[in-house]
């Protein structure tokens, strides 16, 4: 019996580049990178090494059917996931209707929900809800001070307290637990779209999105599911920059010494760290090939291989030999049944940290040589943490569809002579790889193929 094949039939995406997949992809092809100074107000709480990040644009949550009541009980990471999932389902041609108004539950026409799963990645899940809840908890005794608000005070401490008090909710959010829990993103999508098969959260930090797509591939191949929503979602835009500080203190973030626009420069010798994104989400509708054919779905790309390994070396730094990343790539290629020389395009993890880009570029050079095109989507989006691998899987699928590879922003003096795409490049793309590595030590790699033309 031949192996079940898995294709991508729908894509939804929200990132600092835009509120929908076409806007994000257009920005990639146009080389429009997202980067901005961090809010001045954050400096009240901490002098930061890095002063730049990639904020999200305004997102139209109502357009994705998220009501004001739902906003009160959903973490922003789950809301971003819903926007991306809604777009992905529409892109896949899965018409859906509201079947339970009170609970906000939808049902896609013609889809057997018991044969459909959800696989979503996240690094820090409901962290901004946790921060808000803890602020409300700790400051409850001084909340009456809120009446002082408005006037500027002579001392910065009073200004900081006023700013904090101004954000406190009237009520400690009774939905906090369901908003903070790491499985909230996956569970939200499963409940919202009546998907009753496996509902899995991949908490694998910055490799989470890649891993989630890989585990969806395995589930569909194994026959556990016929269709899956898979991807990743993240939101770290707390009002006081506390999450930013956590990364900044670890000296992982890009410095703006070369100017805001030039701060984010993966694979360039002048790189200084990664550009933290406020958040993002990407959801792919992945589906068994015959299931897709039966309903006449348009196929964007095929997912043909997945591999994952673990460094067992350090919680915060890549193992210098890159052996386990190489092994993850080898496993993904073997799963796809191809050789490294077959690969036309590598979408790298490409964070812009000194160590990642050194190790990763050496791995790419050793395994693939300089033949395949290489780019780093994070040079445009910033680093969306647990969503980044999903965003990059979506970018690879769109690259295979359009036979175009976006450029690496700010790459002027490459760390190694790889086949870097410096600008948007038209190319015949048959096989492509997307790889991720993560805090903790996770490595994950996907192999995707151009969709059959027949």
């Amino acid at each position, binding site marked *: 019996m031949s192996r079940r094949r898995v294709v991508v039939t729908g894509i939804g995406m929200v990132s600092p580049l835009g509120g929908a997949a076409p806007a994000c992809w257009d920005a990639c092809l146009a080389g429009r990178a997202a980067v901005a100074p961090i809010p001045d107000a954050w400096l009240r709480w901490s002098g930061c090494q890095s002063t730049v990040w990639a904020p999200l644009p305004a997102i139209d949550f109502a357009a994705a059917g998220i009501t004001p*009541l739902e906003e009160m009980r959903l973490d922003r990471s789950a809301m971003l996931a819903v926007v991306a999932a809604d777009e992905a389902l529409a892109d896949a041609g899965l018409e859906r209707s509201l079947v339970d108004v009170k609970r906000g539950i939808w049902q896609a026409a013609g889809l057997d929900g018991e044969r459909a799963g959800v696989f979503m990645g996240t690094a820090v899940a409901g962290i901004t809800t946790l921060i808000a809840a803890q602020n409300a908890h700790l400051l409850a005794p001084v909340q009456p001070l809120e009446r002082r608000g408005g006037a500027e005070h002579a001392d910065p401490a009073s200004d900081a307290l006023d700013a904090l008090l101004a954000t406190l909710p009237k*009520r400690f959010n009774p939905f906090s637990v369901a908003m903070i829990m790491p499985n909230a993103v996956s569970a939200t999508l499963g409940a919202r779209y009546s998907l009753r098969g496996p509902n899995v959260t991949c908490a694998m930090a910055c490799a989470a999105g890649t891993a989630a797509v890989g585990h969806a591939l395995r589930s569909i191949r194994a026959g556990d599911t016929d269709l899956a929503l898979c991807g990743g979602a993240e939101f770290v835009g707390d009002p006081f920059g506390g999450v930013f500080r956590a990364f900044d203190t670890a000296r992982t973030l890009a410095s703006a010494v070369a100017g805001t626009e030039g701060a984010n420069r993966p694979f360039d010798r002048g790189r200084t760290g990664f550009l933290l994104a406020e958040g993002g989400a990407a959801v792919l509708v992945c589906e068994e090939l015959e299931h897709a054919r039966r309903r006449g779905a348009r196929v964007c790309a095929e997912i043909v291989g997945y591999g994952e390994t673990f460094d067992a070396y350090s919680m915060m730094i890549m193992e210098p030999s890159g052996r386990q990343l190489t092994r993850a790539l080898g496993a993904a290629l073997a799963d796809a049944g191809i050789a490294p020389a077959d690969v036309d395009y590598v979408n790298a993890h490409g964070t812009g940290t000194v160590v990642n880009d050194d190790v990763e570029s050496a791995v790419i050079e050793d395994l693939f040589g300089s033949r395949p095109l290489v780019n780093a989507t994070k040079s445009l989006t910033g680093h969306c943490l647990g969503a980044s691998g999903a965003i990059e899987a979506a970018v690879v699928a769109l690259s295979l569809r359009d036979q175009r590879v976006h450029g690496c922003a700010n790459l002027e003096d490459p760390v190694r002579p790889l086949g870097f795409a410096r600008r948007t490049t038209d190319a015949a793309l048959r096989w492509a790889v997307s790889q991720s590595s993560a805090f903790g030590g996770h490595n994950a790699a996907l192999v995707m193929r151009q969709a059959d033309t027949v």
Partner: protein
Amino acid sequence: MSDPSSPPSTDVAARVETVIRDVLGLESGDVPASSRLREDLGADSVDAVMLVMALEREFKGKISDEEAARLATVEDVVAHVSLRIGAQGLS
């Protein structure tokens, strides 16, 4: 609880009904003032929490947990909001 000193304004009653409909997903049909939130309208414990949050949002004020526990019917809610609503909302 359901005996305000002055009759609730129709505006407040209509706004309360809209909030209750939104929270409980009631699309059509009458919602008599005497309807019990749990027994007649099917509100569960999560709905009860959501209703208080939604009322606080609509009327820009705070309802204490003790007050919320006494809101059993639609007219209880209308009466409470009518009594407590002031120039600065519920407070």
